[in-house]
Protein backbone atom coordinates (compact mmCIF):
# COMPACT_ATOMS: atom_id res chain seq x y z
CA UNK A 1 0.00 0.00 0.00
CA UNK A 2 1.13 3.52 -0.76
CA UNK A 3 -0.02 6.53 1.21
CA UNK A 4 1.08 10.05 0.31
CA UNK A 5 -0.15 13.05 2.27
CA UNK A 6 0.76 16.63 1.44
CA UNK A 7 4.05 15.68 -0.14
CA UNK A 8 6.26 18.53 -1.21
CA UNK A 9 9.73 18.38 -2.67
CA UNK A 10 11.55 21.61 -3.35
CA UNK A 11 14.90 21.95 -5.06
CA UNK A 12 17.13 24.95 -4.69
CA UNK A 13 18.64 25.62 -8.07
CA UNK A 14 21.26 28.11 -8.96
CA UNK A 15 20.11 30.51 -11.63
CA UNK A 16 22.15 32.63 -13.93
CA UNK A 17 21.57 34.44 -17.17
CA UNK A 18 23.65 33.36 -20.18
CA UNK A 19 26.98 34.98 -21.05
CA UNK A 20 30.50 35.11 -19.68
CA UNK A 21 29.88 38.17 -17.54
CA UNK A 22 27.01 36.51 -15.76
CA UNK A 23 29.07 33.37 -15.36
CA UNK A 24 31.86 35.34 -13.68
CA UNK A 25 29.42 37.16 -11.44
CA UNK A 26 27.86 33.86 -10.41
CA UNK A 27 31.22 32.78 -9.01
CA UNK A 28 30.98 35.52 -6.40
CA UNK A 29 27.32 35.84 -5.67
CA UNK A 30 24.72 33.38 -6.73
CA UNK A 31 21.02 33.78 -6.99
CA UNK A 32 19.01 30.77 -6.06
CA UNK A 33 15.50 29.91 -7.02
CA UNK A 34 13.31 27.36 -5.30
CA UNK A 35 11.70 24.96 -7.72
CA UNK A 36 8.62 23.26 -6.38
CA UNK A 37 8.91 19.92 -8.12
CA UNK A 38 6.13 18.44 -6.02
CA UNK A 39 3.76 20.74 -4.19
CA UNK A 40 1.20 19.34 -1.77
CA UNK A 41 0.46 16.00 -3.40
CA UNK A 42 -1.82 13.46 -1.69
CA UNK A 43 -3.09 10.07 -2.81
CA UNK A 44 -3.49 6.48 -1.69
CA UNK A 45 -2.94 3.29 -3.63
CA UNK A 46 -4.15 -0.10 -2.40
CA UNK A 47 -2.23 -3.33 -2.69
CA UNK A 48 -2.50 -4.94 -6.11
CA UNK A 49 -3.66 -1.81 -7.94
CA UNK A 50 -2.19 -0.75 -11.28
CA UNK A 51 -2.08 3.01 -11.46
CA UNK A 52 -0.97 5.23 -14.32
CA UNK A 53 0.89 8.33 -13.24
CA UNK A 54 0.55 11.03 -15.86
CA UNK A 55 1.63 14.58 -16.40
CA UNK A 56 3.56 16.73 -18.88
CA UNK A 57 7.35 16.87 -18.80
CA UNK A 58 8.57 18.44 -15.59
CA UNK A 59 5.27 17.82 -13.79
CA UNK A 60 7.05 16.07 -10.93
CA UNK A 61 6.34 12.43 -11.81
CA UNK A 62 9.89 11.15 -11.57
CA UNK A 63 10.58 13.21 -8.45
CA UNK A 64 7.51 11.68 -6.79
CA UNK A 65 8.56 8.17 -7.76
CA UNK A 66 12.05 8.80 -6.41
CA UNK A 67 10.61 10.00 -3.12
CA UNK A 68 8.38 6.93 -2.95
CA UNK A 69 11.35 4.67 -3.63
CA UNK A 70 13.41 6.37 -0.92
CA UNK A 71 15.97 8.01 -3.20
CA UNK A 72 14.97 11.54 -2.30
CA UNK A 73 14.21 13.09 1.01
CA UNK A 74 10.82 14.87 0.92
CA UNK A 75 10.86 18.55 1.87
CA UNK A 76 7.65 17.99 3.85
CA UNK A 77 4.65 15.71 4.01
CA UNK A 78 4.12 12.08 4.94
CA UNK A 79 4.92 9.15 2.72
CA UNK A 80 4.33 5.53 3.65
CA UNK A 81 5.08 2.68 1.27
CA UNK A 82 4.75 -0.96 2.30
CA UNK A 83 4.36 0.24 5.92
CA UNK A 84 7.74 1.97 5.80
CA UNK A 85 8.99 5.51 5.55
CA UNK A 86 10.90 5.28 2.28
CA UNK A 87 13.82 7.66 2.86
CA UNK A 88 14.98 5.67 5.89
CA UNK A 89 15.80 2.97 3.33
CA UNK A 90 15.35 0.09 5.74
CA UNK A 91 16.36 -3.31 4.42
CA UNK A 92 12.84 -4.67 4.85
CA UNK A 93 11.54 -1.78 2.73
CA UNK A 94 14.09 -2.07 -0.05
CA UNK A 95 13.47 -5.80 -0.29
CA UNK A 96 9.83 -5.18 -1.12
CA UNK A 97 10.04 -2.44 -3.72
CA UNK A 98 11.69 -1.86 -7.03
CA UNK A 99 12.17 1.12 -9.30
CA UNK A 100 12.76 0.64 -12.99
CA UNK A 101 13.96 3.65 -14.92
CA UNK A 102 13.73 3.29 -18.66
CA UNK A 103 16.60 5.68 -19.18
CA UNK A 104 19.04 4.26 -16.65
CA UNK A 105 20.70 0.91 -16.58
CA UNK A 106 21.86 -1.30 -13.75
CA UNK A 107 23.19 -4.12 -15.92
CA UNK A 108 26.96 -4.55 -16.00
CA UNK A 109 27.95 -3.35 -19.43
CA UNK A 110 30.73 -5.78 -20.33
CA UNK A 111 29.16 -8.92 -18.91
CA UNK A 112 26.04 -10.97 -19.67
CA UNK A 113 22.90 -10.11 -17.65
CA UNK A 114 23.30 -13.42 -15.79
CA UNK A 115 26.25 -11.84 -13.91
CA UNK A 116 24.16 -8.87 -12.78
CA UNK A 117 21.51 -11.31 -11.63
CA UNK A 118 24.07 -13.27 -9.64
CA UNK A 119 25.20 -10.07 -7.99
CA UNK A 120 21.65 -8.99 -7.16
CA UNK A 121 21.06 -12.42 -5.70
CA UNK A 122 23.98 -11.86 -3.33
CA UNK A 123 22.89 -8.31 -2.52
CA UNK A 124 19.29 -9.22 -1.77
CA UNK A 125 20.36 -12.43 -0.09
CA UNK A 126 17.88 -14.50 -2.09
CA UNK A 127 18.22 -18.24 -1.35
CA UNK A 128 19.54 -20.22 -4.33
CA UNK A 129 16.35 -22.26 -4.80
CA UNK A 130 14.07 -19.21 -4.75
CA UNK A 131 16.43 -17.39 -7.09
CA UNK A 132 16.40 -20.25 -9.59
CA UNK A 133 12.61 -20.42 -9.48
CA UNK A 134 12.16 -16.66 -9.97
CA UNK A 135 14.71 -16.53 -12.75
CA UNK A 136 13.00 -19.43 -14.51
CA UNK A 137 9.65 -17.66 -14.24
CA UNK A 138 11.05 -14.35 -15.51
CA UNK A 139 12.89 -16.11 -18.31
CA UNK A 140 9.66 -17.68 -19.44
CA UNK A 141 7.52 -14.54 -19.12
CA UNK A 142 10.03 -12.26 -20.80
CA UNK A 143 11.51 -14.81 -23.17
CA UNK A 144 15.02 -14.17 -21.89
CA UNK A 145 16.50 -17.56 -22.78
CA UNK A 146 18.84 -16.50 -25.56
CA UNK A 147 19.79 -13.21 -23.86
CA UNK A 148 21.01 -14.34 -20.46
CA UNK A 149 24.52 -15.19 -21.54
CA UNK A 150 25.12 -12.51 -24.15
CA UNK A 151 27.23 -9.52 -23.05
CA UNK A 152 24.94 -6.60 -22.24
CA UNK A 153 26.68 -4.30 -24.69
CA UNK A 154 25.62 -6.61 -27.54
CA UNK A 155 21.91 -6.51 -26.65
CA UNK A 156 19.41 -4.35 -28.51
CA UNK A 157 17.57 -1.63 -26.60
CA UNK A 158 14.44 -3.75 -26.27
CA UNK A 159 16.35 -6.85 -25.22
CA UNK A 160 18.24 -4.84 -22.65
CA UNK A 161 15.03 -3.38 -21.23
CA UNK A 162 13.62 -6.87 -20.74
CA UNK A 163 16.80 -7.86 -18.93
CA UNK A 164 16.61 -4.68 -16.83
CA UNK A 165 13.09 -5.58 -15.77
CA UNK A 166 14.21 -9.05 -14.73
CA UNK A 167 17.14 -7.59 -12.76
CA UNK A 168 14.73 -5.32 -10.92
CA UNK A 169 12.33 -8.13 -10.05
CA UNK A 170 14.61 -10.98 -8.95
CA UNK A 171 13.92 -10.25 -5.30
CA UNK A 172 10.17 -10.46 -5.97
CA UNK A 173 9.16 -6.99 -4.86
CA UNK A 174 5.49 -6.35 -4.17
CA UNK A 175 5.56 -2.68 -5.11
CA UNK A 176 6.77 -1.71 -8.59
CA UNK A 177 7.59 1.83 -9.63
CA UNK A 178 8.02 1.84 -13.38
CA UNK A 179 9.31 5.09 -14.86
CA UNK A 180 9.03 4.99 -18.65
CA UNK A 181 9.74 1.27 -18.92
CA UNK A 182 8.84 1.18 -22.62
CA UNK A 183 10.69 4.27 -23.81
CA UNK A 184 12.25 3.82 -27.22
CA UNK A 185 10.87 0.32 -27.72
CA UNK A 186 9.07 -0.91 -30.82
CA UNK A 187 5.40 -1.85 -30.69
CA UNK A 188 5.84 -5.60 -30.28
CA UNK A 189 8.33 -5.11 -27.44
CA UNK A 190 5.95 -2.61 -25.80
CA UNK A 191 3.19 -5.20 -25.98
CA UNK A 192 5.46 -7.85 -24.47
CA UNK A 193 6.40 -5.62 -21.56
CA UNK A 194 2.79 -4.60 -20.96
CA UNK A 195 1.68 -8.22 -20.92
CA UNK A 196 4.50 -9.04 -18.55
CA UNK A 197 3.65 -6.25 -16.09
CA UNK A 198 0.02 -7.37 -16.04
CA UNK A 199 1.04 -11.00 -15.43
CA UNK A 200 3.43 -10.07 -12.66
CA UNK A 201 0.81 -7.87 -11.03
CA UNK A 202 -1.72 -10.71 -11.05
CA UNK A 203 0.63 -13.50 -10.01
CA UNK A 204 2.12 -11.66 -7.05
CA UNK A 205 -0.66 -9.21 -6.21
CA UNK A 206 1.91 -6.50 -6.73
CA UNK A 207 1.13 -2.81 -6.66
CA UNK A 208 2.21 -1.08 -9.87
CA UNK A 209 2.73 2.61 -10.44
CA UNK A 210 3.59 3.42 -14.03
CA UNK A 211 4.60 6.50 -15.93
CA UNK A 212 4.82 6.40 -19.69
CA UNK A 213 4.82 8.70 -22.62
CA UNK A 214 2.93 6.07 -24.56
CA UNK A 215 -0.70 6.53 -23.59
CA UNK A 216 -1.46 3.09 -25.01
CA UNK A 217 0.60 1.60 -22.17
CA UNK A 218 -1.55 3.42 -19.65
CA UNK A 219 -4.85 2.65 -21.36
CA UNK A 220 -3.96 -1.03 -21.63
CA UNK A 221 -2.58 -1.45 -18.13
CA UNK A 222 -4.07 1.02 -15.71
CA UNK A 223 -7.72 1.11 -14.65
CA UNK A 224 -6.87 4.13 -12.53
CA UNK A 225 -4.88 7.24 -13.35
CA UNK A 226 -3.34 9.96 -11.23
CA UNK A 227 -2.66 13.11 -13.21
CA UNK A 228 -0.38 15.83 -11.90
CA UNK A 229 0.81 19.10 -13.32
CA UNK A 230 3.44 21.38 -11.85
CA UNK A 231 3.61 19.24 -8.75
CA UNK A 232 -0.07 19.30 -7.86
CA UNK A 233 -2.82 16.75 -8.31
CA UNK A 234 -5.34 17.52 -11.04
CA UNK A 235 -7.11 14.19 -11.35
CA UNK A 236 -7.24 10.92 -9.46
CA UNK A 237 -9.64 8.20 -10.46
CA UNK A 238 -11.01 5.86 -13.02
CA UNK A 239 -9.49 6.26 -16.50
CA UNK A 240 -12.83 5.91 -18.34
CA UNK A 241 -14.42 8.40 -15.98
CA UNK A 242 -11.68 10.90 -16.75
CA UNK A 243 -12.22 10.55 -20.47
CA UNK A 244 -16.00 10.86 -20.15
CA UNK A 245 -15.74 13.86 -17.89
CA UNK A 246 -13.27 15.70 -20.07
CA UNK A 247 -14.76 14.87 -23.45
CA UNK A 248 -18.00 12.89 -23.57
CA UNK A 249 -18.11 12.95 -27.38
CA UNK A 250 -17.24 9.87 -29.42
CA UNK A 251 -15.00 9.70 -32.42
CA UNK A 252 -16.69 8.12 -35.42
CA UNK A 253 -14.42 7.14 -38.31
CA UNK A 254 -15.56 5.82 -41.67
CA UNK A 255 -14.65 5.58 -45.35
CA UNK A 256 -17.05 7.02 -47.91
CA UNK A 257 -17.64 5.12 -51.13
CA UNK A 258 -15.93 6.64 -54.17
CA UNK A 259 -19.27 7.44 -55.81
CA UNK A 260 -20.79 9.25 -52.81
CA UNK A 261 -22.85 12.26 -53.85
CA UNK A 262 -22.09 15.63 -52.25
CA UNK A 263 -19.83 14.14 -49.58
CA UNK A 264 -19.05 17.56 -48.02
CA UNK A 265 -22.69 18.26 -47.24
CA UNK A 266 -23.13 14.76 -45.80
CA UNK A 267 -20.08 15.01 -43.54
CA UNK A 268 -21.02 18.45 -42.28
CA UNK A 269 -24.42 17.10 -41.25
CA UNK A 270 -22.89 14.28 -39.17
CA UNK A 271 -20.70 16.25 -36.77
CA UNK A 272 -17.51 18.26 -36.41
CA UNK A 273 -14.74 17.03 -38.67
CA UNK A 274 -11.56 16.18 -36.82
CA UNK A 275 -9.61 14.59 -39.62
CA UNK A 276 -10.17 14.07 -43.30
CA UNK A 277 -7.81 12.22 -45.56
CA UNK A 278 -9.43 11.60 -48.96
CA UNK A 279 -12.42 9.30 -48.43
CA UNK A 280 -11.38 8.50 -44.81
CA UNK A 281 -13.07 10.81 -42.31
CA UNK A 282 -13.19 11.14 -38.53
CA UNK A 283 -15.92 13.23 -36.92
CA UNK A 284 -16.74 14.13 -33.35
CA UNK A 285 -20.26 13.11 -32.35
CA UNK A 286 -22.09 13.57 -29.02
CA UNK A 287 -22.78 10.17 -27.47
CA UNK A 288 -26.56 10.22 -27.79
CA UNK A 289 -26.38 11.05 -31.50
CA UNK A 290 -24.05 8.18 -32.33
CA UNK A 291 -26.84 5.76 -33.25
CA UNK A 292 -28.41 8.25 -35.67
CA UNK A 293 -25.09 9.02 -37.29
CA UNK A 294 -24.29 5.35 -37.75
CA UNK A 295 -27.70 4.74 -39.36
CA UNK A 296 -27.07 7.60 -41.70
CA UNK A 297 -23.65 6.23 -42.67
CA UNK A 298 -25.11 2.83 -43.48
CA UNK A 299 -27.64 4.49 -45.78
CA UNK A 300 -24.77 6.07 -47.66
CA UNK A 301 -22.83 2.80 -47.86
CA UNK A 302 -19.89 4.01 -45.77
CA UNK A 303 -17.40 1.28 -44.85
CA UNK A 304 -14.75 0.58 -42.16
CA UNK A 305 -16.89 2.10 -39.45
CA UNK A 306 -15.22 2.66 -36.04
CA UNK A 307 -16.58 4.27 -32.87
CA UNK A 308 -13.99 5.18 -30.25
CA UNK A 309 -13.38 7.21 -27.14
CA UNK A 310 -11.25 10.29 -27.68
CA UNK A 311 -7.56 9.40 -27.40
CA UNK A 312 -6.00 9.97 -24.00
CA UNK A 313 -3.28 12.16 -25.51
CA UNK A 314 -5.95 14.61 -26.64
CA UNK A 315 -7.67 14.63 -23.27
CA UNK A 316 -4.40 15.37 -21.52
CA UNK A 317 -3.48 18.08 -23.99
CA UNK A 318 -6.76 19.82 -23.21
CA UNK A 319 -6.29 19.32 -19.46
CA UNK A 320 -2.78 20.71 -19.34
CA UNK A 321 -3.73 23.67 -21.49
CA UNK A 322 -6.61 24.48 -19.21
CA UNK A 323 -4.38 24.24 -16.15
CA UNK A 324 -1.80 26.61 -17.59
CA UNK A 325 -1.85 30.11 -16.18
CA UNK A 326 -3.11 32.81 -18.56
CA UNK A 327 -0.21 34.40 -20.38
Amino acid at each position, binding site marked *: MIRVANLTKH*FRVHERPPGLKAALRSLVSRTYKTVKAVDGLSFEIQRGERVGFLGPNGAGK*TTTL*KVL*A*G*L*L*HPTSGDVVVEEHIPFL*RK*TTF*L*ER*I*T*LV*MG*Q*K*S*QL*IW*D*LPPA*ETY*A*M*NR*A*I*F*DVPHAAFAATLAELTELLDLGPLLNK*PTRQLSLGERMKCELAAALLHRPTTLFL*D*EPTIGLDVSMQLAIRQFVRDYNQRHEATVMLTSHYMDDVVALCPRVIVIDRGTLIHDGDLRGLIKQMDPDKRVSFTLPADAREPDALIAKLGTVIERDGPRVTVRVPEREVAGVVGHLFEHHATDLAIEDPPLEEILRVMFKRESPPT
Partner: protein
Amino acid sequence: MRKILRLALVQLRISASSAMAYRLDFFVEGLMSLVWMTLTLLPLVVLYGTRTSVAGWTADEALVIIGYFMLVRAVLEGVVSPSLVELVERIRSGAFDYTLLKPVDAQVLVSTAKFEPWKLFDVLGALALLVYAFVRRGYGPSAVDLALGSLLLVAGVAAMYALWIACAAAAFWVVRLDNLTYLLGAVFDVARWPIQVFRGAWRFVFTFVIPVALMTSYPAMALLGRLGGLRALAVVGCALAMLVASRLLWRVAIRNYTSASS
Protein backbone atom coordinates in the same frame (compact mmCIF):
# COMPACT_ATOMS: atom_id res chain seq x y z
CA MET B 1 29.41 -9.16 8.13
CA ARG B 2 29.25 -12.56 6.43
CA LYS B 3 26.86 -11.12 3.90
CA ILE B 4 29.26 -8.28 3.15
CA LEU B 5 32.13 -10.71 2.69
CA ARG B 6 30.08 -12.89 0.37
CA LEU B 7 29.02 -9.84 -1.57
CA ALA B 8 32.62 -8.70 -1.93
CA LEU B 9 33.51 -12.14 -3.26
CA VAL B 10 30.77 -12.00 -5.88
CA GLN B 11 31.88 -8.53 -6.93
CA LEU B 12 35.48 -9.74 -7.07
CA ARG B 13 34.46 -12.63 -9.32
CA ILE B 14 32.49 -10.27 -11.55
CA SER B 15 35.35 -7.79 -11.77
CA ALA B 16 37.70 -10.61 -12.65
CA SER B 17 35.39 -11.80 -15.43
CA SER B 18 34.97 -8.20 -16.59
CA ALA B 19 38.74 -7.95 -16.78
CA MET B 20 39.00 -11.21 -18.73
CA ALA B 21 36.39 -9.93 -21.19
CA TYR B 22 39.25 -7.99 -22.74
CA ARG B 23 41.88 -10.67 -23.00
CA LEU B 24 44.68 -8.56 -24.42
CA ASP B 25 44.21 -5.98 -21.69
CA PHE B 26 44.77 -8.63 -19.11
CA PHE B 27 48.25 -9.46 -20.36
CA VAL B 28 49.15 -5.84 -21.03
CA GLU B 29 48.13 -4.84 -17.52
CA GLY B 30 50.11 -7.69 -16.00
CA LEU B 31 53.18 -6.53 -17.88
CA MET B 32 52.54 -2.91 -16.88
CA SER B 33 52.55 -4.07 -13.29
CA LEU B 34 56.14 -5.28 -13.64
CA VAL B 35 57.24 -2.12 -15.43
CA TRP B 36 55.76 0.06 -12.71
CA MET B 37 57.54 -1.90 -10.02
CA THR B 38 60.87 -1.33 -11.71
CA LEU B 39 60.13 2.37 -12.16
CA THR B 40 59.16 2.69 -8.51
CA LEU B 41 62.59 1.42 -7.47
CA LEU B 42 64.51 3.65 -9.85
CA PRO B 43 64.65 6.86 -7.76
CA LEU B 44 65.91 4.84 -4.83
CA VAL B 45 68.75 3.36 -6.87
CA VAL B 46 69.75 6.84 -8.05
CA LEU B 47 69.55 8.37 -4.58
CA TYR B 48 71.48 5.68 -2.74
CA GLY B 49 74.05 5.41 -5.54
CA THR B 50 75.99 8.31 -3.98
CA ARG B 51 75.21 8.06 -0.27
CA THR B 52 74.56 5.41 2.37
CA SER B 53 71.89 7.09 4.45
CA VAL B 54 69.08 9.58 3.79
CA ALA B 55 67.36 11.30 6.74
CA GLY B 56 68.45 8.45 8.96
CA TRP B 57 67.29 5.67 6.65
CA THR B 58 69.71 3.21 5.05
CA ALA B 59 69.05 1.88 1.58
CA ASP B 60 67.68 -1.42 2.94
CA GLU B 61 65.34 0.38 5.30
CA ALA B 62 64.19 2.65 2.50
CA LEU B 63 63.37 -0.51 0.54
CA VAL B 64 61.00 -1.49 3.35
CA ILE B 65 59.17 1.80 2.92
CA ILE B 66 58.94 1.20 -0.81
CA GLY B 67 57.53 -2.24 -0.05
CA TYR B 68 54.80 -0.71 2.10
CA PHE B 69 54.25 1.97 -0.50
CA MET B 70 53.68 -0.67 -3.16
CA LEU B 71 51.32 -2.63 -0.92
CA VAL B 72 49.17 0.38 -0.13
CA ARG B 73 49.33 1.51 -3.75
CA ALA B 74 48.18 -1.93 -4.89
CA VAL B 75 45.09 -1.64 -2.69
CA LEU B 76 44.57 1.92 -3.88
CA GLU B 77 44.88 1.11 -7.56
CA GLY B 78 43.34 -2.34 -7.32
CA VAL B 79 40.26 -1.58 -5.26
CA VAL B 80 39.77 1.97 -4.07
CA SER B 81 40.52 3.99 -7.17
CA PRO B 82 38.55 1.85 -9.65
CA SER B 83 35.57 1.88 -7.31
CA LEU B 84 35.77 5.65 -7.00
CA VAL B 85 35.93 6.08 -10.76
CA GLU B 86 32.92 3.80 -11.02
CA LEU B 87 31.09 5.84 -8.38
CA VAL B 88 31.68 9.13 -10.19
CA GLU B 89 30.47 7.53 -13.40
CA ARG B 90 27.34 6.23 -11.68
CA ILE B 91 26.57 9.60 -10.12
CA ARG B 92 26.99 11.33 -13.46
CA SER B 93 24.79 8.88 -15.35
CA GLY B 94 22.25 8.56 -12.55
CA ALA B 95 22.82 4.81 -12.22
CA PHE B 96 23.81 5.51 -8.61
CA ASP B 97 20.05 5.47 -7.98
CA TYR B 98 20.20 1.73 -8.40
CA THR B 99 22.98 1.50 -5.83
CA LEU B 100 20.83 3.32 -3.29
CA LEU B 101 17.92 0.99 -3.99
CA LYS B 102 19.88 -2.02 -2.78
CA PRO B 103 19.38 -3.26 0.77
CA VAL B 104 23.10 -3.06 1.53
CA ASP B 105 24.96 -0.02 2.83
CA ALA B 106 25.83 2.14 -0.17
CA GLN B 107 29.39 2.73 1.07
CA VAL B 108 30.00 -1.02 1.12
CA LEU B 109 28.56 -1.42 -2.36
CA VAL B 110 30.57 1.48 -3.71
CA SER B 111 33.82 0.41 -2.06
CA THR B 112 33.63 -3.05 -3.56
CA ALA B 113 32.16 -2.02 -6.88
CA LYS B 114 35.23 -2.66 -8.95
CA PHE B 115 38.50 -4.52 -8.59
CA GLU B 116 41.50 -4.71 -10.83
CA PRO B 117 42.57 -8.26 -10.13
CA TRP B 118 46.02 -8.01 -11.73
CA LYS B 119 47.11 -5.63 -8.97
CA LEU B 120 47.67 -8.89 -7.13
CA PHE B 121 50.97 -9.02 -9.04
CA ASP B 122 51.92 -5.75 -7.32
CA VAL B 123 51.15 -7.26 -3.92
CA LEU B 124 53.35 -10.25 -4.68
CA GLY B 125 56.11 -7.95 -5.93
CA ALA B 126 55.89 -5.80 -2.80
CA LEU B 127 56.10 -8.84 -0.51
CA ALA B 128 59.13 -10.11 -2.43
CA LEU B 129 60.74 -6.70 -2.05
CA LEU B 130 60.15 -6.70 1.72
CA VAL B 131 61.74 -10.12 2.04
CA TYR B 132 64.67 -8.98 -0.13
CA ALA B 133 65.19 -5.87 2.03
CA PHE B 134 65.45 -7.95 5.20
CA VAL B 135 67.72 -10.49 3.55
CA ARG B 136 70.08 -7.65 2.59
CA ARG B 137 69.92 -6.27 6.11
CA GLY B 138 71.02 -9.65 7.38
CA TYR B 139 68.35 -10.31 10.01
CA GLY B 140 64.54 -10.43 10.02
CA PRO B 141 62.04 -8.55 12.19
CA SER B 142 61.14 -9.90 15.63
CA ALA B 143 57.72 -11.46 16.12
CA VAL B 144 56.49 -8.34 17.92
CA ASP B 145 57.74 -6.06 15.16
CA LEU B 146 56.14 -8.28 12.55
CA ALA B 147 52.80 -8.16 14.36
CA LEU B 148 53.01 -4.40 14.84
CA GLY B 149 54.14 -3.88 11.25
CA SER B 150 51.17 -5.90 9.99
CA LEU B 151 48.72 -4.08 12.25
CA LEU B 152 50.01 -0.72 11.03
CA LEU B 153 49.74 -1.91 7.44
CA VAL B 154 46.03 -2.39 8.04
CA ALA B 155 45.87 1.04 9.72
CA GLY B 156 47.73 2.59 6.80
CA VAL B 157 45.38 1.07 4.25
CA ALA B 158 42.43 2.24 6.37
CA ALA B 159 43.82 5.80 6.47
CA MET B 160 44.25 5.80 2.71
CA TYR B 161 40.74 4.40 2.23
CA ALA B 162 39.27 7.06 4.54
CA LEU B 163 40.95 9.82 2.56
CA TRP B 164 39.54 8.48 -0.70
CA ILE B 165 36.03 8.02 0.72
CA ALA B 166 36.10 11.64 1.88
CA CYS B 167 37.06 12.52 -1.66
CA ALA B 168 34.25 10.33 -3.00
CA ALA B 169 31.77 12.15 -0.77
CA ALA B 170 32.84 15.35 -2.49
CA ALA B 171 31.73 13.79 -5.76
CA PHE B 172 28.13 14.31 -4.72
CA TRP B 173 28.61 18.06 -4.78
CA VAL B 174 31.03 18.67 -7.59
CA VAL B 175 30.36 15.63 -9.81
CA ARG B 176 33.48 16.25 -11.92
CA LEU B 177 36.11 14.82 -9.64
CA ASP B 178 38.98 13.97 -11.95
CA ASN B 179 41.23 16.77 -10.77
CA LEU B 180 40.77 16.00 -7.12
CA THR B 181 41.65 12.34 -7.63
CA TYR B 182 44.71 13.30 -9.69
CA LEU B 183 45.84 15.62 -6.92
CA LEU B 184 45.34 12.94 -4.27
CA GLY B 185 47.18 10.46 -6.46
CA ALA B 186 50.10 12.85 -6.84
CA VAL B 187 50.19 13.55 -3.12
CA PHE B 188 50.07 9.85 -2.38
CA ASP B 189 53.28 9.47 -4.36
CA VAL B 190 55.02 11.28 -1.51
CA ALA B 191 54.40 8.17 0.58
CA ARG B 192 57.37 6.44 -1.07
CA TRP B 193 59.74 8.67 0.93
CA PRO B 194 60.36 8.46 4.69
CA ILE B 195 58.53 11.23 6.48
CA GLN B 196 61.85 12.34 8.00
CA VAL B 197 62.89 13.60 4.56
CA PHE B 198 60.40 16.43 4.95
CA ARG B 199 60.86 19.36 7.25
CA GLY B 200 58.71 22.03 8.89
CA ALA B 201 55.34 22.71 7.34
CA TRP B 202 55.55 19.84 4.87
CA ARG B 203 56.16 17.29 7.57
CA PHE B 204 53.14 18.64 9.43
CA VAL B 205 50.99 18.48 6.30
CA PHE B 206 52.02 14.94 5.43
CA THR B 207 51.57 13.72 8.99
CA PHE B 208 48.30 15.38 9.94
CA VAL B 209 46.55 17.03 6.98
CA ILE B 210 47.08 14.49 4.24
CA PRO B 211 48.56 11.79 6.45
CA VAL B 212 50.69 9.85 3.99
CA ALA B 213 53.18 9.22 6.83
CA LEU B 214 50.49 7.05 8.44
CA MET B 215 50.31 4.91 5.35
CA THR B 216 53.97 3.94 4.85
CA SER B 217 56.58 5.58 7.09
CA TYR B 218 55.14 4.57 10.46
CA PRO B 219 54.25 1.01 9.43
CA ALA B 220 57.77 0.60 8.00
CA MET B 221 59.29 1.95 11.21
CA ALA B 222 57.19 -0.51 13.20
CA LEU B 223 58.40 -3.43 11.13
CA LEU B 224 61.98 -2.24 11.50
CA GLY B 225 61.54 -2.03 15.27
CA ARG B 226 61.95 1.74 15.30
CA LEU B 227 58.48 2.70 16.54
CA GLY B 228 57.41 2.56 20.20
CA GLY B 229 54.14 0.94 21.23
CA LEU B 230 52.63 4.25 22.24
CA ARG B 231 53.29 5.89 18.90
CA ALA B 232 51.97 2.81 17.13
CA LEU B 233 48.79 3.11 19.15
CA ALA B 234 48.52 6.77 18.17
CA VAL B 235 48.80 5.79 14.49
CA VAL B 236 46.01 3.22 14.86
CA GLY B 237 43.91 5.83 16.69
CA CYS B 238 44.45 8.37 13.92
CA ALA B 239 43.46 5.85 11.27
CA LEU B 240 40.30 4.97 13.20
CA ALA B 241 39.45 8.64 13.62
CA MET B 242 39.88 9.17 9.89
CA LEU B 243 37.59 6.24 9.15
CA VAL B 244 34.89 7.62 11.43
CA ALA B 245 35.21 11.13 10.02
CA SER B 246 35.02 9.92 6.44
CA ARG B 247 31.99 7.81 7.29
CA LEU B 248 30.21 10.84 8.73
CA LEU B 249 31.07 12.91 5.68
CA TRP B 250 29.79 10.15 3.43
CA ARG B 251 26.46 10.05 5.25
CA VAL B 252 26.00 13.79 4.96
CA ALA B 253 26.78 13.50 1.25
CA ILE B 254 24.21 10.72 0.72
CA ARG B 255 21.55 12.77 2.45
CA ASN B 256 22.22 15.61 0.08
CA TYR B 257 22.18 13.42 -2.98
CA THR B 258 19.66 14.82 -5.41
CA SER B 259 19.85 12.18 -8.14
CA ALA B 260 20.57 13.07 -11.75
CA SER B 261 17.67 13.98 -13.99
CA SER B 262 15.23 11.32 -15.14
